[in-house]
């Protein structure tokens, strides 16, 4: 990918609880693009997102966002950077004690001195963009999963961020909601001139909306390319992932001694 990178990740290694999760990730994400990071469960995708957001520090290597090395920032610097980021969590993470309207107004009230009338107009604009202006005064508990995800998306873009991160945005959505959320991610990115980074399993939806895809396995990037390159790829890992094959480079069985040994009680636990 060309043009200036908004995110530069160099030789990133991360480990916690005695396990190495990321083992030398190099990634450069240009401004204005929608990029997906894909891989099986537990391969380190969300860890990567957390390093970019400054929630985890690397063991070695570095993550730069807009020219700033994230793990070297103090709390004030990190919070200043996070004000320019939006994040959509897997299940929305809406604040359940306040209404949809207040959820979207929350970052505006916390970080700006805008008058109440302007906050109201901005909140309605964001809700209009995700098609939920009519649900402004509902409580999060009254929303379906898809609606909650759209409200969370509106909240993530409340302050017009330069970078929007999505952690499994399609998980648990019905096909209609999934399509809506996918299209919103693309449209909002282009309308705001932002950069989007998406961690997901959903290959088919992703191929329709992203500019570039990285495949991560066992903490390393094993394949990358544009959607067309991915579709045409003969890489065994990409082939297994795109075609949802049970066995391949990612084995069906978790490594273990043979079944005979287990039955004979040679090993346990």
């Amino acid at each position: 990918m060309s043009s200036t990178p908004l995110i530069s990740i160099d030789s990133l290694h991360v480990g916690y609880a005695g396990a190495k999760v990321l083992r030398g990730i190099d990634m450069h994400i240009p401004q204005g693009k929608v990029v997906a990071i894909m891989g099986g469960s537990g391969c380190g995708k969300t860890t990567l997102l957390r390093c970019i957001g400054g929630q985890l520090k690397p063991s070695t290597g570095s993550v730069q966002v807009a020219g700033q090395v994230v793990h070297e920032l103090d709390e004030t610097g990190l919070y200043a950077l996070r004000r320019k980021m939006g994040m959509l969590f897997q299940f929305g993470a809406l604040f359940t004690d306040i209404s949809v309207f207040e959820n979207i107004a929350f970052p505006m009230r916390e970080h700006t001195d805008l008058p109440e009338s302007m906050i109201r107009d901005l909140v309605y604009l964001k809700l209009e963009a995700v098609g939920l202006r009519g649900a402004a005064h509902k409580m999060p508990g009254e929303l379906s999963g898809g609606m909650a995800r759209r409200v969370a998306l509106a909240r993530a873009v409340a302050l017009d961020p330069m970078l929007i991160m999505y952690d499994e945005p399609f998980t648990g959505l019905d096909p209609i909601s999934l399509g809506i959320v996918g299209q919103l991610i693309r449209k909002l990115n282009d309308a705001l001139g932002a950069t989007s980074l998406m961690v997901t399993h959903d290959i088919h939806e992703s191929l329709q909306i992203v500019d570039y895809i990285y495949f991560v396995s066992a903490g390393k990037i094993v394949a990358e390319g544009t959607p067309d390159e991915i579709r045409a790829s003969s890489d065994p890992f990409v082939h297994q992932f795109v075609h949802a094959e049970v066995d391949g480079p990612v084995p069906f069985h978790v490594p273990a001694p043979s079944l005979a040994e287990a039955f004979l009680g040679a090993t346990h636990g």
Partner: protein
Amino acid sequence: MANLLQGLRERLQALGQGAIDRIWRLGFASRFFIAVLRQSASTFLRPRLLLREIFFSGVLSLIIISVSGLFVGLVLGLQGYETLQRYGSSEALGVLVSLSLVRELGPVVAALLFAARGGTSVTAEIGLMKATEQLMAMDMMAVNPLARVVAPRFWGGVITMPLLAAIFSMMGVFGGWLIGVVFIGVDDGAFWSQMQAAVDFRFDILNGVIKSFVFGVAVALIAVFEGYDSVPTAEGVSRAITRTVVTSSLAILALDFVLTSFMFRGA
């Protein structure tokens, strides 16, 4: 023999590890307390947040505190009258009821009830916010959860506790009066006048307020810490709530002994 030694070694290791874990957690709780205090300025600069927590911790605990205070006062009235009348001092019933409540039962029982009602709800709320990634979302929005979520709940508890203890004592005195004066027939004037003469503002009421303030700090800190430090699962939050009740109750009773020792005059 080798197996026995191995088993002994493992038990000793587990014991040592448990002790290290507990000391580490105590240290973490102390650092957490300091961090909450450092993030407390915003709580007082945004009184709406604080008022909301005072409402949830205090106002919603009013019924249980008032009813419990009334029943404790009713029982004190009955038991106190039975004992005092043996010595012909039934007019001192007001003194017995009020001193028992203001010095001990008011702060202690109100704090135990507050831990069970307000403390558990704070732990559950913060624990569930953690489990549903709301705290993480707030942090990613560059809003410090200690300042926005934890500190208001902590100070809400601290401010609420002495007020609830006062209401508990007031209802208790009313209960004692109801039993003693209205139902049994102790002289109304003697009940109130002996109470006024015997209860000292500095050594009785103020000491009671100090106790309830200290209990408020302990219970509120335990409640917010357990919620914040809970394992973000249904089981983890449930265990955190249990720990809030158990730790708060023990802390209240231990602190009560320590404070009473310092306040003891011996005359």
